[in-house]
C-alpha cells in the first residue's frame, strides 16, 4: 500500500443552505470531500484560501478555512474528527447527512459506536 499524501484543503459552508462544502480543483464547491483539491505546500494552500475568500465576497460560501487532510488512492480524509464529521454526518445518525446521501466519501468513517 502506498502512503497517503498530506496537505490542506479548503472547506466552508454554502451560504444559502449551510451545507459543508469543499473547494475543488476546478474552483467549484463540492459536498464530497473526495473531490476536494489538496494543497501540498503552504503557498498553494494560501492560494486556495484566497480563492475561497473571493467566493465569500460573491456570497457563494461563508466561513472558509483550511484543514489538514490526506489523500490515498483518490480518497480524501480530514485529519481531525470534527472535519470527518462534517464530511460524513453525525456518527449517531448514520441515516442522515452525506454518509446517507451517497456523498460521504473519505476513507474509513470515524470510528464510533
Amino acid at each position, binding site marked *: 500500500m502506498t502512503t497517503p499524501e498530506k496537505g490542506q484543503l479548503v472547506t466552508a459552508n454554502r451560504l444559502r443552505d449551510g451545507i459543508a462544502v469543499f473547494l475543488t480543483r476546478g474552483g467549484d464547491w463540492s459536498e464530497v470531500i473526495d473531490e476536494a483539491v489538496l494543497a501540498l505546500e503552504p503557498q498553494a494552500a494560501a492560494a486556495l484560501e484566497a480563492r475561497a475568500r473571493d467566493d465569500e465576497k*460573491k456570497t457563494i460560501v461563508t466561513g472558509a478555512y483550511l484543514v489538514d487532510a490526506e489523500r490515498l488512492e483518490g480518497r480524501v480524509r480530514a485529519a481531525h474528527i470534527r472535519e470527518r464529521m462534517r464530511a460524513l454526518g453525525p456518527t449517531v445518525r448514520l441515516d442522515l447527512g452525506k454518509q446517507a446521501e451517497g456523498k460521504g466519501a473519505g476513507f474509513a468513517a470515524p470510528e464510533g*459506536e
Partner: protein
Amino acid sequence: MYRYDEFDHQFVRERTDQFRNQTERRLSGALTEDEFRPLRLMNGLYLQLHAYMLRVAIPYGTLSGRQMRQLAYIADTWDKGYGHFTTRQNIQYNWVKLEDAPDILDALAAVEMHAIQTSGNCIRNVTTDHWAGAAADEIADPRPVGELLRQWSSLHPEFSFLPRKFKIAVTGAPHDRAAVKVHDIGLRLHKNDAGEIGWEVIVGGGLGRTPMVGVTVRDFLPQHELIGYLEAIMRVYNLYGRRDNKYKARIKILVHEIGADKFKSEVEAEYARRPHPTTEVEERELARIAAYFAPPDFEKLPRWSASFEEAKLANPAFARWARNNLGPHHVDGYAIVNISLKPEGGIPGDATGDQMRVMADLAERFGSDELRVSHAQNIVLPHVKKDDLLTVYQALEKADLAAANYGLAGDIIACPGLDYCALATARSIPVAQSISRKFADSKKQDEIGKLKINISGCINACGHHHVGHIGILGLDKKGEEFYQITLGGSSAENASIGTILGPGFAGHEVADAIETILDTYLKHREAGEEFLATYRRLGPKPFKEALYATA
C-alpha cells in the same frame, strides 16, 4: 396558557418581516457575514457543523398541543423529521437552510412562537420549573412572571448588547427544579408570615468554564418592584461587566471580582437613583397575564383511582413506569406525567415529528392541552387524571416514548456534542448511549435510584455536567476524545458544583467507569440514601480508590 393579543401578534410579525428582509440582504450580498451574523443570531439561527441550526424558544417551557404539532410540522417540512429538546427549554433543528429560515419563523409566529433572543448577548429565553402550575409543593405558578419577563426582555433596547448572554430562571416552589442558583439571575418565590409573596433575587450563578453558585442580593423583593429592580441589575452589568475577554464577561465574574457586597450596593444605588415610575401598569399587566394561567377546570376526584391501582397490579411494566415517571399533583385524582425522551440507547432529547404529534394528541385528549419541556430534556404532561394514565401509557409505549427511567441512571442529560456542535471538543451523545445501554436492566436502575448523569461535549457546559450528580465532560487530547468525570454536583436548592475525580477516560471506558462508581455507591450506601447523599457523606475517596485502583 398565555395567548397573544393583537400587540404580541404584531410585534412578532414585524420582527419576522425584519428578519426576512435581513436574510434577503445577506443572500443578495448587501450585507456581509460579519454584519449579518449578529442579526441571525438574535433570531436563533446558528451555523453549525452540518448546516444552519435554528433554536426556537419555548418560553418557560410551556406548549399547547397545537404548538407541539407545529414543531412537528417544521421538523418534517424544513428539517429531517426530528428536533432536539434542550436543557434550556428550547428546541433545536439541526438541518435548516438559511433561505427557509424566514418561512419557519412565519410558521412559528402562526402559533404564537418565535426564536427571538435564543442566541446573542442578550436576555435569553426565561426558564421555569417544568412542573409549574401542577406541583404539589408550589407556592404560586411562576409562569405569569415568566411571561412578564419574556415581554420585558424582548428587543429591550438597552440590554440587547450586553457583555455576554444572560439567562434568567424562575421557580415558584421551594424544591428547585429550575436550577435558579446556576443562572445569571435566579428568582425564587417565598411567602412571609403575613401570607404575602416576594422574590428572592439570586445573581451570578452559571456554568461554563467558571462554574459558580449565585449569591442572594434581595431576600424578599415585592413582586411589583421586579422589573425596576432587574433593570438596575442589568444596567450595572451592562456598564461594568468585562468586555475585554469573553470568558470573563458573564455577570458571575463581575460579582466575583468586585465582591457580592459591592455588587449589591452598586445595584441598590442604581435602583435608588433611577426615576421610579408608578408600577401600576406592571401590576395590571401581571394580573392580565396571570388570568391566562388560571388552572384548568379540575374535576373533583377521589385521591385514589381504583382503575389506576388495578391496572398497576395487572401490568408490571405500567406499574414500574407509574412509579418512576409520575410526579405528585396538587389536585387529588391527578398526576404529572413525565415522558422520558431517553429510550435505551437513544439520543437524549431528540423526538421525531411523529412522536411530537403523539404527545400533542395526548395533551389535547388527556392533559388540558398543555405540555412542558423540562431542563432535563424530557416532556411533561402536567395535568393527567389518574383514571387516564393507562391509556396514556399505552399510547406512549406505541410511540417508543414509554421509557420508565425518569430521574434514574438512564435519564441522562447530554448536549449535542461533536456530532452536531461546531464548538465541541468531543462527542457526548455516544457516551450517553453507551451508559444507557449499560444500565438497560431496569432492576439495576431501580436499585440505584435517583441519579443525574449530565454530559457536555466541551467546557461550555451546555449539558450541565458541573451540576450532575455524576458529570462527564468531553475534551480533546491531541486529537483524541477523552472524558473527565466529576462527582457531587447538584442544581437543586442545595446546589453544588461537582469535583473532578481524577484523570480522564477514553470514550469506550466511560460506561465501565460509571458502573464502578455506582457499584461503590451501592456498597457504601445506608438504607434509603440517594447517590448524592452518600457522596456528600463519604467524599470522593472511596470512589477514587475504586476507580483508579491498580488492577
